[in-house]
Structures are given as structure tokens and as C-alpha cells.
């Protein structure tokens, strides 16, 4: 093997420029594919993280997947009830605190009840529709990051005024309200309520910052016109990725519709899968193009070295030994290119990660780069496989050289 390695090394080291071109081809393929994968997975993870942080992992609502059977249907199997009118008001979750206690007993995570209603927020002659969420300020930090997203005031300030309200910063800017201002809430029933802005929050998700407001649960219940109403139970799971399974179990246990963050964002997540497929296709294409460079070099060396191959075979070298020489040359270029490509990819990631970037939709100060050995191993395996294949065809051709034909031609 040492002899094969010596010959292979001599071939590629005596053609410095060609070897460098091939090596750089592989290195750039590997480097750029690592950079691209790190950037795409980084942005995806960053987006998912923002998404998961801004929403409950699981939301149990007072809805059901299918209409509950009517008592008459239960009593008489031949009966079918159709055309039932939709209830005007939300029914709420029955025995919500019993359900909360029950969930707290067995799930790995935290639970908080809430009341969701809609209202018109009016201030200084400006009206805007908003989703008003009634929360328990003690439990809320356990299920959402609202407490850390407060920019002015604190979550506990909800207790400091009667009908206190926390507005999204963009919502507040839209109506021109500031902390300390009194605003009017117009309920769906037309009832009016005066509330005091005690804090502003900024989640980084534009839609939430522009349309959401938080109040105490009892304030939301009054606004909804249903005292004691709890129409949503929010769950923060310890295992984020296990939220889907947990939601299924909660739904089975409570009978209420439980939606995990994955289910709520199914379209987005499937779009990510397509994006990943596109990413890996592009990465594969980059490496494939790089492998053509390797093929070209090994082919050229094979062509130039036909006479040497004939000599080696006339001396008694076997076909597999000749084949190994050229395969090894290809792999040396592949390995060296991969190592350089790793360094290049890492440097590119560092460089990209240092660029400050501002989006009008989300707060991203720097491009999100995801560092993982997986990208390095993946690009290396594709690059080495491509180099192997690129070297195989010329190597096979070299091994099939008939020495007598070359020697006869040279005589």
C-alpha cells in the first residue's frame, strides 16, 4: 500500500497547479455547502425558536374536533340531528381548574388557564381590533415569555390598577397610547370598559405585537360577558419536540381540542421540509460540480501517465494495484479538499455570523448560523463519495491499459 501511496502522491504532487485547482474545487464545494447549510438551518431554527417562544407549545381550547353527540342521538341510535345552530357565545372549558390540576399531575411541563376574547381598543379617536387575553400573572411566566418581553412596566403591574392592560408595542404605537394612558375597550356585546395601560410588550412577532393585549382573567371574563369563563388552557412542555404526542394525550384525557405548536404551524413546517430538500439539492449540485473538477484532473493524469501505467504493468503490477493508484489520487484530492473546505466553511460561517442584519418583520441582529458537526460530516461524505466516483472511471480505464499496445506504439 505504501508503494501505491508513493506513486499516487508523486503523480499529484508533481502537478501542483492541477492538483490545487481540483483541491480548491472540492474545498469550495464543501465550504460553501457548509455555509449554506449552516445559514439555512440557522435561520430555520431561529424562526422556529421565535415561533415556539411566542406561542404556547400546546393550546387546549373549548372546541372539539367533531360536534358532540346530541342527547337525542345518544338515546335513539336511528336519529340524526342536522343543522344545529352554532352557539353565539363560546361555551368555555367545563371545570377548567380541575382539568388544570389533572394536567399538572401528569404532564412534564407547566399549565396556565386563560381567557381569550376580542375587543375594539379605542384611544384618542382611533379604533383598532385586538385579541384580548386574560391571564394569571403568577402562572403566565411559566407558559410564555411574556414577562421577559415586557419593555415598559412589569407583568405584575396588572394588579396595580383596576382593568389594567398590557399592549403590544406596535398596537400602542398604532393608537398612540403610552403607559399610564386610559383607553376604552369595546366588547363584542357593545359594552364599554375603561382600562389603564400599565405596560408594553415586544415579542418580535409583528402580528402579536400589533394585535394582542393582556389583561387579568377576571377583566377578560367581564369583557366577554361570561363570569368564570376559561376558554383556553396553555401548556409549556419540557420536551418541545414531543408537544405533538403530548397534545394527543391531553386531547384524549380532556376531550377538548388540543393543538400543538407543530400542528398549528403544519404548513410552515412542511414548507421547511421543502426548503431543506431544495437546500440539500443545491448542496449536492455544488459538490457534484466540484467532483467534475476531480474527474477532469484524474482523467488528465491518467491520460498523461498512460506510458507509466504500461511500464508498471509490464513490470508486473496488477490491474487492481494500478486502479488503486488513481483512486487514491482522487481520494487524496478529496480528503485534502474536504479539510480545506471545512476550514473555509467555518470561516465563512464566522464571517456571515458577524454581519449585522435588520429585518422590518423580526428583530434579528445577526444572521443566525447553526454550527453542527452534521453539516461537516455530510459535506465530507458527499465530497469523498463524489471524489471516489470521479476517480473510479479514469482508474478503471487506467487499469485496463494493455502495456504491449503502449510499448509497441512507443518503439
Amino acid at each position, binding site marked *: 500500500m505504501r508503494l501505491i501511496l508513493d506513486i499516487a502522491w508523486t503523480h499529484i504532487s508533481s502537478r501542483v497547479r492541477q492538483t490545487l485547482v481540483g483541491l480548491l474545487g472540492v474545498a469550495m464545494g464543501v465550504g460553501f455547502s457548509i455555509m449554506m447549510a449552516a445559514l439555512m438551518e440557522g435561520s430555520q431554527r431561529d424562526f422556529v425558536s421565535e415561533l415556539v417562544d411566542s406561542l404556547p407549545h400546546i393550546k387546549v381550547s373549548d372546541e372539539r374536533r367533531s360536534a358532540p353527540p346530541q342527547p337525542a342521538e345518544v338515546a335513539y341510535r336511528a336519529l340524526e340531528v342536522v343543522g344545529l345552530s352554532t352557539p353565539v357565545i363560546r361555551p368555555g372549558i367545563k371545570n377548567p381548574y380541575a382539568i388544570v390540576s389533572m394536567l399538572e399531575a401528569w404532564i412534564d411541563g407547566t399549565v396556565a388557564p386563560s381567557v381569550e376574547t376580542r375587543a375594539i381598543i379605542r384611544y384618542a379617536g382611533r379604533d383598532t381590533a385586538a385579541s384580548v387575553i386574560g391571564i394569571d400573572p403568577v402562572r403566565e411566566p411559566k407558559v410564555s415569555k411574556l414577562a421577559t418581553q415586557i419593555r415598559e412596566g412589569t407583568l405584575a403591574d396588572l394588579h396595580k390598577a383596576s382593568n389594567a392592560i398590557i399592549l403590544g408595542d406596535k398596537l400602542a404605537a398604532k393608537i398612540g397610547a403610552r403607559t399610564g394612558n386610559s383607553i376604552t375597550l369595546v366588547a363584542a356585546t357593545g359594552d364599554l370598559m375603561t382600562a389603564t395601560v400599565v405596560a408594553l410588550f415586544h415579542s418580535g412577532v409583528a402580528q402579536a405585537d400589533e394585535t394582542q393585549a393582556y389583561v387579568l382573567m377576571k377583566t377578560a371574563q367581564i369583557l366577554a360577558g361570561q363570569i368564570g369563563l376559561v376558554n383556553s388552557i396553555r401548556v409549556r412542555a419540557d420536551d418541545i419536540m414531543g408537544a405533538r404526542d403530548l397534545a394527543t394525550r391531553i386531547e384524549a384525557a380532556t376531550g377538548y381540542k388540543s393543538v400543538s405548536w407543530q400542528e398549528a404551524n403544519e404548513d410552515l413546517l412542511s414548507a421547511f421540509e421543502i426548503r431543506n430538500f431544495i437546500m440539500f439539492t443545491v448542496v449536492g449540485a455544488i459538490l457534484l460540480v466540484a467532483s467534475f473538477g476531480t474527474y477532469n484532473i484524474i482523467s488528465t493524469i491518467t491520460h498523461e501517465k498512460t506510458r507509466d501505467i504500461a511500464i508498471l504493468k509490464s513490470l508486473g503490477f496488477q490491474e487492481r494495484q494500478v486502479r488503486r493508484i488513481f483512486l487514491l489520487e482522487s481520494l487524496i484530492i478529496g480528503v485534502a479538499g474536504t479539510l480545506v473546505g471545512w476550514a473555509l466553511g467555518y470561516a465563512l460561517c464566522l464571517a456571515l455570523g458577524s454581519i449585522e442584519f435588520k429585518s422590518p418583520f423580526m428583530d434579528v441582529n445577526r444572521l443566525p448560523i447553526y454550527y453542527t458537526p452534521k453539516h461537516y460530516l455530510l459535506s465530507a461524505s458527499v465530497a469523498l463519495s463524489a471524489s471516489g466516483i470521479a476517480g473510479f472511471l479514469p482508474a478503471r480505464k487506467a487499469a485496463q491499459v494493455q502495456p504491449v499496445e503502449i510499448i509497441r506504439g512507443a*518503439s
Partner: protein
Amino acid sequence: MTGPASPQPLLEIRHATRIIDGEVPTTLVREVDLAILPGEFVSVTGPSGSGKSSLLYLLGLLDLPTVGEVLVAGEPTSGLDEDARAKIRLTHLGFVFQFHFLLPEFTALANVMLPMRALGKLDEDEQRARAMAILDQLGIAAHALKRPGQLSGGQRQRVAIARALANDPMVVLADEPTGNLDTASSEQVLQILRRLTDEQGRAIVFVTHDLSLAARADRQVRIVDGRIADGGPSRVDG
């Protein structure tokens, strides 16, 4: 020619014909019988295109006869695959070509060590020592670390001979070994080949178009139109 007590031929060609396929098939050698005995110094001569080199390639298992058989130490080779024939070339035969055919990136020493490394019988120090000893015998040990491009034509050819001797072959086959050399270098190379027979008992078969060099061989084989005209078999059975 030889009696029943004559030694076993090292190489034998029996009734061999070599035809190259093509639009017009070309016959390189036809119905050739030849045997090479241990310690023989044999020249092969003939007009250009008469089949001298083709005969040598058949003897050296670099080519296969279309019809007939080549035997090495009495063993037929027609049933062997390319790897097996390569192994015989590596262990039993040495080749010297008109163009030295040294690997240009390797030093003279490394070129001589190549067949030993491929065979792998000796360790690296032993290979180096043996290669240096051979180069020394041929008077070019001082150039051991030079590359072929730094050597004269005669020196390159001596390195090529040293490489042919690397694995201690029983037969050295030389195709126009002096064809590319001046008179003085040709003389040196011929003397070296002669010494290999006289001092080491190796069989040498060399192709040449120089009749004065050919005349110094123990046996002169003359080939015309692919057929052996003179100096034919020492023993061919079957």
C-alpha cells in the same frame, strides 16, 4: 540440437501465431517454435516489421499468442489470467526496452526499487541495499539519487537494466536495448548484458537490428516475415 539430458528450458514458445484483429488482420508471428535455456545469450534479428519485438512480447507474457502456447519453466501460461501473468513477469522476468521507460518523477534508486516493492519480499532496507548493489555492479551507484532527466541515455539504460534485475529474474528480455544509444554506450550495455550471462548465469534474449552486436550472442535467432529462419528451437515438444 539437444539431447535427452539437456536442461529444462526457461521459456518456450510452441507453434505460436499472433494475429492482430482489424479491418485487415495482421499476422505478427506465425507458427513460431523457440526455447530459451538457462544461461543462454540469445540475439533476435530481422528486418523491420519482421516480428522481432512481437516474439519478445510473447516470450515475456506481455502479449498472448492467437494460436499456440508459451511455457515458463515448463508450465503453460495460456490458461492464466492477466494478474497471474503479471505475477510471473514480476518474479521471473526482467524487461529492458529501447526507450528506458523509467518513471520520470522517481530517482534512479526508486525506479530500481519499484519491482522489489511491488513484490514485497524484502523489507525497505534490504530493498535499498540490493538496489544500490545492482546500481554499483552497473557502475552508476553515484547517480542513484538522480532522476532520469538528469542522466545520459547510456546511464538511463543501465538504470533500466538494474530495474530489470531487481527481483533476480531467470530471464532478461531486452527490446533494442542499444537502439537509442551511441556506439560507446551500446558497447557498455552489451557488455553488461553479456556479464549477466557469464557471471550470473541468467538467460538474456535481446532484439537488435545491429548485426555486429547480434553476432556476439551465443545463439542468433533470425526472423523473417514472422517466421524463424535461423537459430530456432533448442527444444520444443508437443
